[in-house]
């Protein structure tokens, strides 16, 4: 077990209910106000976060390689991937929209992967960044996570609107399911991560070996 940070509820023998924020004694197992299970920290926070992140990272490959949209225009079929769609938008002259889509569906997921992997690394080993900036990074991932869904919604709308048989019609590609999976899994990963472990001191190598023995 790691040492709880100085002045924290955990160090004072109290538990902060993760559901309702009631501060209760350590000996209680169920929160008296909301019936949630009381725990000092989320159960298996790091393992869950890492497992979900790695799954999402694997799904990120087909999400980028498979087509997001299949456009049929006068019997000519076009497959567009995420990046292909952005390049197309840029070439058509709608640069601001290309930037919006690029940020939402490329920058945001990549940033989330980097930050969450880094935070898991921080929680296991020590790092130079202060606790406060790490918690700010965590808040950033929580805030930006949902915005990657923009691309999925755009595909859904275009598919719903453009159905003119062989003249012009749009079908969703298999990439959409993979991409929706990436967004949902990274959101779950961000929720599984407990920012409070960033403040707890990780054990030094000597303590680890002595704990094992």
């Amino acid at each position, binding site marked *: 077990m790691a040492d*709880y*940070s100085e*002045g*924290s*509820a*955990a160090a*004072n023998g*109290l538990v*902060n209910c993760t*559901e*309702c*924020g*009631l*501060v*209760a*004694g350590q*000996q*209680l197992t169920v929160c*008296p*106000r*909301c*019936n*949630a299970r009381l725990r000092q920290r989320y159960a298996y926070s790091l393992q869950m976060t890492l497992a979900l992140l790695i799954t999402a990272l694997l799904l990120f490959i087909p999400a980028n390689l498979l087509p997001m949209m299949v456009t049929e225009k006068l019997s000519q079929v076009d497959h567009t991937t995420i990046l292909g769609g952005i390049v197309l938008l840029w070439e*058509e002259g*709608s640069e601001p*929209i290309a930037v*919006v*889509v690029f940020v939402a569906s490329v920058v945001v997921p990549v940033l989330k992967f980097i930050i969450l992997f880094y935070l898991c690394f921080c929680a296991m080993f020590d790092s130079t960044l202060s*606790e*406060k900036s790490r*918690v700010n990074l*965590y808040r950033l991932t929580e805030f930006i996570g*949902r*915005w990657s*869904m*923009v*691309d*999925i*919604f*755009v595909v*859904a*709308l*275009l*598919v*719903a*609107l*453009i*159905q*003119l048989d062989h*003249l012009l019609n749009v*079908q*969703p590609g298999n990439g959409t*399911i993979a991409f*929706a999976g990436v967004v*949902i899994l990274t*959101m779950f990963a961000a*929720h599984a991560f407990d*920012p*409070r472990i960033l*403040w707890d001191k990780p054990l030094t190598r000597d303590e680890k070996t002595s704990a094992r023995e």
Partner: protein
Amino acid sequence: MVKTQYVACDHCDLLLDAPVLHEGDCALCPRCGHKISRLRRQLHAQLSAFGMTALVLLVMSNAFSFMMFNLNGNISEITLWQSALNLYFEQYKALSLIVFIFIVVIPALVVCLILFFLLMIKLDYRPKPLANVLRLIFGLLPWAMAEVFFVGVLVSLVKLVTIAQMDLGWSFWSYALFCVCYAKVLSLLDRYQLWSWLEQGHRYG
């Protein structure tokens, strides 16, 4: 053993004395800057007003047409429901359900549950399961993606105006206003305050 005179920060677990707030005050964690609580002026009344407005607007945005697409006389028109459910008939059932749940079901559920909770508090009736309602509200919050969908709508509009004539229906405007009201509801929701209302005999602001 319950210590209501204490609170602990959700982001760094710092143990703090429970904040004593006047209307308009905001309590921040001194160590990590996380917002502990913010007591808005007439929180209950404001939440009910914006919640009800949002609900009416959401019902309205399901009643009319959302967008019309006109390519040289080939017209297609969709409602908010169809924007998600048309995918269902194109053998993309999982995707259509995800979209439908994120843009209509969860926002509607969140608003209804908040209004239900406010009504129960107003009636001073606090049965035990009301705690579960509150837990459900805060659990569902991150999955309501009304504003993200709206950005998606704007992106696809800009994409489509270059190839066809686009007309916006009443639903579009009411959904836009719904997003504004919903954002206001979200900014008013305060976990600390709402949970403290649940305690017996607590006077709400």
